[in-house]
């Protein structure tokens, strides 16, 4: 799953959002690290709605323009949960290896200091 897709799904978990609010929520979820472009956002929404992971919750006309509100579907929540599990498992492995490497590095430093 690509990062914009992951972030959009995560952002929509709280409540249904329209496009502009979704951009802000993605930025908030990523702690300001990711600011999605509008083109990227709608490409992700297209893909997600096509796969049935996101659905249009409601439509309203604001200032003469159609505004759609999107929500995560049950399938979307399940897919996100699976992705989170996968990423968590990967993170655990990475952390374990990092611990090993850091421990080995500390031992090397200690040996060098003893000499």
């Amino acid at each position, binding site marked *: 799953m690509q990062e914009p897709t992951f972030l959009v799904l995560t952002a929509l978990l709280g409540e249904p959002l329209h*496009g502009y609010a979704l*951009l802000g929520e993605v930025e908030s979820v990523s702690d300001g690290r990711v600011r999605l*472009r*509008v*083109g990227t956002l*709608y490409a992700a929404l*297209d893909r997600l709605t096509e796969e049935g992971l996101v659905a249009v919750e409601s439509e309203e006309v604001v200032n003469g323009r159609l*505004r759609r509100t999107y929500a995560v579907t049950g399938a979307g929540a399940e897919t996100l949960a699976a992705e989170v599990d996968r990423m968590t498992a990967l993170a655990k492995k990475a952390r374990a290896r990092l611990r090993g490497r850091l421990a080995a590095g500390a031992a090397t430093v200690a040996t060098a200091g003893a000499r």
Partner: protein
Amino acid sequence: MSPERRYRLLLLSYPRSYRAARAEEMLDVLLATEGRRGALSGMPEAVSLVGHGLALRLSRPMVRPAFSPSVGLAGVSLLCLLAVLGAQQLTAAGIRGLGLDGYPDEWRIGVLWVDPRWPVHALWVTTGLALLLGRHRPALASAWAAAVLQTWHLVVTAVTSVELPWPGDVGPHWVAPGGIAQGSWALLSLSSAVMLGGPAAAARAHAGMPGRRWCMVVATGLVGVALASVAGPAAYALLGNAHPQLVDDVRGPVLPLVLAAAVLASGLLHVPHGRTALLLLGMLAAAPLAARWSEPVGTLGASMVVFVAGYAVAQRGRRRVPSTPGPL
């Protein structure tokens, strides 16, 4: 330029159907985010929009112009008539080759045993049979093979002037008849293959008239072939060498084609889109008729104009592109 106008221009990179469903919504978000973006972030946004728009255009299947039902009907009709023509040519060549027609040897110039066009005729017959049997994919392949082969004949004839070499050529070289006449048949062969569209379109076109009626068209044409095979020698016996062209016409494809066309027309008049198909067939028939009696270059030009005009008329009812994108 106002931001709205600028964004509308950028959104033109998206497919029309997508814009119809999404443009206003995207524009709303773009204008709402305009304020919080810095002055320098306009370009990446523009690049992103154009990139996604073009990617969407490329990733979507091309919306091909739909063949209107009348064009498909005309295509199947034309192929049935070409099948009758092919059967007549093969029969005439066989009878001539076996010397059963009683004609003098000088007449060999018309139909020779070694006529290299026989594969084209055989392919026309194959196409007709495949269509009648509902085998639309082989029919399409056969129709295109005939069109390509006949075009190749045409090119070789033009390059070699009069003689058309062929691997199966075991007798005297076949003298190619007027190139423009062959050109008109090649045009019809090519047109019929194009008008058939794909296998699905061919199946729809075939279903446009009852299968029994298509069989009747071809069967009537074959009866005409049998009659012409008998009528030719009879006319020669009656008229002798006094009217060779008339005798040639009697034994030729005129009778089979007229009979088949009559049955075809009576069927097309009673099915939806049949009248337009009939109009198209009439336009296409102008090509070989004009090729026989008029100036070559003018005939080619006229037949092309007729075909293009007929195709344009038939495409008036072409299918509309869906106005909403798939995901919605």
